[in-house]
């Protein structure tokens, strides 16, 4: 279970960071979301992975730590609000600059097709 869990966190974080470095706001938001999923799972794992244990000290020899679950809950709520804000902000960016480039730059004209170039002689 530990290996699977670690691989999932790694995959989520790697895809999150990759998307974060893209030039459009939508992939950036997706990247931040994936990154926060990875982070939440990581926080959850910081109390060690245990199944079928009680979260109360003294009831049995092994117990599961309830604190990381509380931390994850807080992190989820905050991350959710922040993502919502970022979505609104990037919509505003789209409206203000007429494109969703993270630097607000106007796109260069797409390269014309081969046919057109041949016709215009360039």
């Amino acid at each position, binding site marked *: 279970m530990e290996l699977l869990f670690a691989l999932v966190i790694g995959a989520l974080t790697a895809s999150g960071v990759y998307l974060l470095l893209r030039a459009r706001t939508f992939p950036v938001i997706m990247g931040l979301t994936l*990154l926060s999923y990875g*982070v939440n799972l990581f*926080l959850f794992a910081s109390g060690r992975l245990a199944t079928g244990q009680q979260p109360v000290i003294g009831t049995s020899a092994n117990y599961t730590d309830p604190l990381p679950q509380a*931390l994850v809950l807080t992190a989820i709520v905050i*991350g959710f609000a922040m993502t919502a804000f970022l979505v609104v902000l*990037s919509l505003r*960016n789209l409206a203000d*600059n007429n494109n969703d480039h993270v630097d607000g730059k106007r796109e260069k004209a797409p390269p014309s097709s081969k046919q057109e170039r041949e016709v215009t002689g360039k």
Partner: protein
Amino acid sequence: MTHWLIAPILIPLLGGILQVVMGYAPISLRRTLALTITVISLASSIVLLVLASDDSYRIYAFGNWQPPFGIVLVLDRLAALMLALTGILGLFCHIYASGGADEGNRQFHALFLFQLMGLNIAFLTGDLFNLFVAFEVLLIASYGLLMHGGGTARTVPGLHYVALNLVGSALFLIGVGMIYSVTGTLNMADLAVKIPQVTGNNLNLVKAGGMMLLVVFGLKAAILPLCFWLPKAYARATAPVAALFAVMTKVGIYAIVRVFLLIFGEGAGELANLGMDWLFPLALITLSMGVIGALGADSLKTLVAWQVIISVGTLLAPIALGSVAGLSAALFYLVSTTWTVAALFLVSELVASQRGLAGDSIVTAPKMRHQTLLSVLFFIGAVAAAGLPPLSGFFGKLLILQSVEPGVEMAWLWGVLLVGSFLTLIAYSRAGSIVFWWHVDGHVETPEPINNRVSISTGILTCLTMLIVVLAGPVSDYTRATAEQLHDNRGYINILQTPVHVPQNPLVGESH
């Protein structure tokens, strides 16, 4: 247990909620109420400053849970100093904002009060995860404030600011998770006890977690590789918001001082002084970068935004060296530079409002109205920021220079700080002479009238630098005592032993 500790958090919280509810009330009523709340909040911060000056630690345990099991607020000299600094800055920024900058957004005052609340939680909390929550509270309010006033120019820097800080939050959580997985606690006092006991492989986990926290705090404080978001965002924010943000980078510095002195300080065994040998060169490079940016600035606000980065470098260099004298000098300079930079942001906005289309660009323009008042205010701000005598910036820098022991560090710090101050002076002279001394013929079509609130708040905030000079003795005594208190973390650890729940009157308890 005194209940005063929760006041600087509760007062802006309740005031902010009230502002949300009465968003459609007349603006004069909302302004009056919001300003009243800011004044009361400042008053409570000053009460805490008086309470803290007896060198003891006071804690406020939520739900009467004995630390380390519950979240605690801890009041010591450093927390009280930062609270008072923020309270005074917040009040003048708020007065300025109520002179007209708060129009156009019904929730401006609510956001402003929530911002103050977030700052106050960050300074008071004694719990690492609660510090994360405080950062998020002050950030979400700052996102709203940064976008306040509209304008397409703010969207892109705002987007960068939000995205960067979200990544910072993710790193913060990873760092917190790594430290928790080894120590099993997030209470700062308890961490200071547990971290020196960490051994073996776990040492590297804690080390990585601690360094990750340093990266996050460095992002908030705008240390060099992480500072490029700052100038654009600050230069384009509304003036009172930019002025309030002068304290935001100081939150990062506060967090570095608090966490790294307490948890990874001298007594942390193998992890003692974690990251500090990285911090010193980075601080000096940050300082140099800020100076280069200031020299190349094309508008007054950009110039002041780079001054924020210069002051971050100046503050962190002595903190990284880790002496009591250095920390004391840095705290003295922190008070001075925060108010000066904020005042310069306000002055720049006033200048921009009097120059029509030229705005705050450093270009020659027709003669502005209120030239004398504005040039005098800018002159005072520039002298204090560049660190010339007789204003407080000079004393701050002098204390920092005096605090270093002779050696390689001294050569580097003296060299970079002195050359940097000289070049900053050139940047301010160039900007000031172009904006205030040289004119082209003609007149500005529509200079906006300057009302009393705006001019008085700017004037007082600018003149606080003189107040610091007059009170230099008491202020430096206070910062020295603060530095001594911070260097000895046994007092902070002792809060774990403080019994939280003491029956006030045992006899009454028995009769029930």
